[in-house]
């Protein structure tokens, strides 16, 4: 219930007398736009996806763009890059990108003309001194498990929150954008499960409201979540110690290995990802009252993102 009760109460008052009717859409721009999605990482090959956007009253699946042709400019030269396409609009290339590479893509789409986008690969972030606080680890075996009666494997369970800290060495004289996340990779399926993070940092996030961890229904705190975004606006060129905690909630460490990942993002990537997250949040319960969110795009002639990111990943070693 809590204070979000006002929303249904007000909504009920409003809708009690309301009626709806279908109206004709009376506007322009019903034509689909080409969509480019690509978030390449340093030292990885370039891949991208091309689809068409769909009109908002059209419920059909998005259509992949096939037979697109590419022209690539990399650091001022025009290398020959081969692209192979898949059915879902994904194009895989043989171009490997590295830190500080400047890439511009020109894509010719049949009957739609050309779209273009550019990016510069950020330098890999430099972090050090990653350390964790102690956490209670319990071990259990389940000899009576009805689904696995003969299993005598010892399971290690982490209980509570894992506090960590590391030092981020921010490069001076440039605007840097970062994202922190933490996840485990399932040893058998290799599937990533992201943890909820809580970064305790009043310099990066300037929480003039509160840092109290109260169970409000809707949380708009940028320092909490599975992906934490921030800029170096307040720490430019400095070594900054970031403290946080991973909300574990009984993770089975016998099956999973936890990692912390820090990504440097290009400005466009940063804006694209945070606006995408914001839109997702505001489309939930807050859709009725919050301002609409425009997802950042850097594609000329179309929409989408040609992003760039460089990541460092460090495992968290826990004593079992």
């Amino acid at each position, binding site marked *: *219930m*809590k*204070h*979000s*009760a*006002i929303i249904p*109460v007000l909504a009920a*008052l409003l809708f009690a*007398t*309301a*009626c*709806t009717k*279908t*109206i*004709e*859409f*009376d*506007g322009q*721009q019903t034509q689909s*736009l080409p*969509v480019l*999605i690509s978030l390449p990482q340093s030292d990885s090959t370039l*891949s991208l996806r091309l689809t068409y*956007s769909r*009109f*908002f*009253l059209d*419920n059909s*699946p*998005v259509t*992949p763009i096939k037979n697109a042709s590419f022209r690539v400019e990399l650091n001022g030269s025009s290398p020959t890059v081969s692209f192979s396409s898949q059915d*879902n*609009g*994904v194009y895989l290339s043989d171009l490997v990108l590295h830190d500080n590479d400047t890439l511009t893509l020109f894509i010719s789409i049949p009957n739609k003309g050309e779209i273009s986008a550019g990016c510069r690969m950020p330098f890999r972030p430099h972090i050090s001194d990653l350390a964790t606080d102690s956490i209670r680890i319990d071990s259990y075996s389940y000899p009576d498990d009805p689904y696995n009666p003969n299993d005598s494997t010892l399971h290690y369970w982490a209980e509570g929150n894992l506090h960590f800290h590391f030092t981020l060495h921010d490069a001076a004289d440039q605007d840097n954008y970062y994202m922190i996340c933490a996840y485990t990779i399932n040893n058998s399926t290799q599937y990533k499960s992201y943890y909820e993070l809580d970064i305790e940092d009043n310099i990066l996030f*300037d*929480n*003039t*409201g*509160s*840092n*109290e961890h*109260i169970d*409000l229904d*809707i*949380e*708009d*705190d*940028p320092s909490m979540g599975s992906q934490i975004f921030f800029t170096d606006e307040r720490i430019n060129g400095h070594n900054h110690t970031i403290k946080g905690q991973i909300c574990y909630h009984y993770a089975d460490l016998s099956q999973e290995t936890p990692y912390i990942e820090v990504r440097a993002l290009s400005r466009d990537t940063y804006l694209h990802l945070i606006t*995408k997250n914001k*839109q997702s949040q*505001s489309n939930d319960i807050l859709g*009725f*009252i*919050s*301002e*609409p*969110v*425009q*997802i950042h795009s850097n594609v000329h002639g179309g*929409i989408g993102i040609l992003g760039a990111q460089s990541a460092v990943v460090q495992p968290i070693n826990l004593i079992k």
Partner: protein
Amino acid sequence: MKRSFTVLLMLLVGTLCFAQNTAKQTPSKTITGTVTDARTGETLIGATIYDTISHKGTVTNQHGRFSLTLPGQQAVLRISFVGYQMQFHQVSLNQNIRLNVQLEGSTTLAEVRIVGQRTPHVESSQASVIEIPVEQVQAIPMLFGETDVVKAVQLLPGVQNGSEGTAGMYVRGGGPDENLFLLDGVPMYNVNHLGGFFSAFNSDAVKNIQLYKGSFPARFGSRLSSVLDITTNNGNDKELHGGVSVGFISAKAYLEGPIIKEKTTFSISARRTYGDILAQPFISFIAATEADIGKINFGYYFYDVNAKVTHRFNDRSRLYASFYMGDDAIYLRFKQADSYMYNNFLRFRYHWGNIVSSVRWNYELTPQLFMNLSGAFTRYRSNLSVTEELVNRTRNENWYYTMGLNSGIRDFSTNADFDYTPTPDHAIKFGSRYVFHHFTPETTSVKESDNDNDIPTIDTIIGQSNIGAHEAMTYFEDDWRINDHFKVNLGLNFTGFAVQDKFYPSLQPRLSGRYLFSDKFSAKVGYAYMTQYLHLLSTSSISLPTDLWVPVTAHITPMNSHQVAAGLFYNLLDSLNLSVEGYYKNMDNLLEYKDGASFWGNSQGWEQKVCMGRGWAYGVEFLAQKTVGKLTGWLGYTWSHTYRLFDRPGQELNNGKPFPAKYDRRHDVSIVLTYKFTERFDASLTWVFSSGNAATLALQQFDPTMGENTYSNTVDYISSRNNYRMPNYHRMDISLNWHKKLKHGKRTINLSVYNLYNHQNPYILLTDYSWPEGNLSLKQLSIFPILPTVSYIWHL
């Protein structure tokens, strides 16, 4: 800063000396007095006093008082006021004279042609000012039959409402927080009931309504877009008088009369909605028949009370004490003992409202100098509280949770205002004001306890601390009749605002001028620079109690605007006021919520949720207003554009490009007609048309993934803010009144029909998914279909 004070002081002293010198040039005497209604003793604001010999005149001020200094030996004064029989008084000017005039009301608003008289509409030096007779407001058909001052004002050109039925006002491209609502000279912060569907002003208590849309006189400040100056009744000083009205959703009553005859009067009016009371038996019945519901009680109500006491010490001195209190409340109480082992208890209450109170003392220092001292307190607050309790009956366990969300603003203010009329050619006003603002932007208190030790007890208060701010204003203005053709109103307003160790001074020049082509035709121009130190953080189009009043801070700088307006004013056949006005307004430091932000969630301070930008608006307004005769009303038309631009680094909206404001409407038409067929029957009609509101629609959707998901995972692509136009809005309302004289008093039966031809007007747009067909369609939500209502009104 020092220079600003010097300029203001020089202007004040210079004009006073000039005016004094002008006054001394010819021997002259001053006639002072008040103009009142002969039946009720109520002072009349804006009555005209005109000397037919010297052709000089003046009008009564907010307190019904006038001062007219005339040369010569004799004067023949013509005293007139719309709806009252004109009077002539011949006076000898051998000494200063006191003349208190009591005007008899006309039985009808007769169309009396007064040769050679200029109507205030043509004569006044100020453009962009409209006065609405209260009788006309009370005759306008309204939602649920509830007459509403703010909704009547929304029918004027240049003023737009927000969404259907709401009391939010958008004046010449400004926001809803840019309007200064004055109740007996004291600002009121929240003027809405029921989310804005009704205004907080009870029309039974109102005597005079004046709207300033531009060319603001220097005595007004602290808002960018408009001033709605509402004066309440002083009370009948002859006899006890009252009335009761029972409407569709509310009942109201008023009573006024003398405490000491012709000396001390009182006026009190109150209203309350009663839907919650009527519904309670049904709620209890349903709860009793459904075993698992338990005991439940919920509802909504609002009430307001206006009270005023006036004491006349003598002809030179009066004391007024006025009080307003209004509250809205939503509540829910739920108690249940389940069949298993738990007792559940839930209590929810959300209430919000105003208190406005003031004490004023009028004193005539000299026949030419009138003083008004006042002290006032105004408060708006909203409070939400939720309490939940869960008790395990079989074990000694209970869980308890309570949360409170508070916000509000409190003002303590003092005013000293002076009217100085040295000659009929100068009407000088000067004064000063000090306000201490106390803001509570948002605080949340949470308490949780559980006697099961696994869950820790929480007892904390979070949110921003209170903010105190000091606002001081001094002003000077002179309504100066230069010659028979030219009249100007020159003014300066100097305001300073101190908050969080920051001081924001603002020197605001005001200028308006009139050129009279003939007694019936004038042209006017005006310029006003305005500064505003408060913001209302409001997300949606309807007025929510969660809207927060916040001050400028060390980071959020004051809003300001420059507005120029020019217009032509014509009086046709002494009964029809015609005007056409154009305006251009530039606004800076406007606040908007950032993309995705809302008032909800308090982990970030409000300053992090908003961005600053600018806006501009321009338009043309046409008004034809008829205030006398059997047929009264007006026709208004507005053509306008309103834009916003938020392009400051880090604060961009719409990618830093201009976008139309939410209420940028190209055309607005309103027709308001009241016709008095007989003494026993009259009827009113309103018709409104406006271009559709701007809305933001994501016209395209795209898949932001690399195709790793097999299911559809699309996001919205919004090309720009407010990129779509809702369908046009139009609606017709009628109101029929049958009056009958009773043995005691008079009764009126009112039939109002809101949205007569049941047009489904857009409120919000939605996309609708039909299942199992799987089709998407665009739907509009309309909230008010045809709504007939009947009210019974009894006047003593």
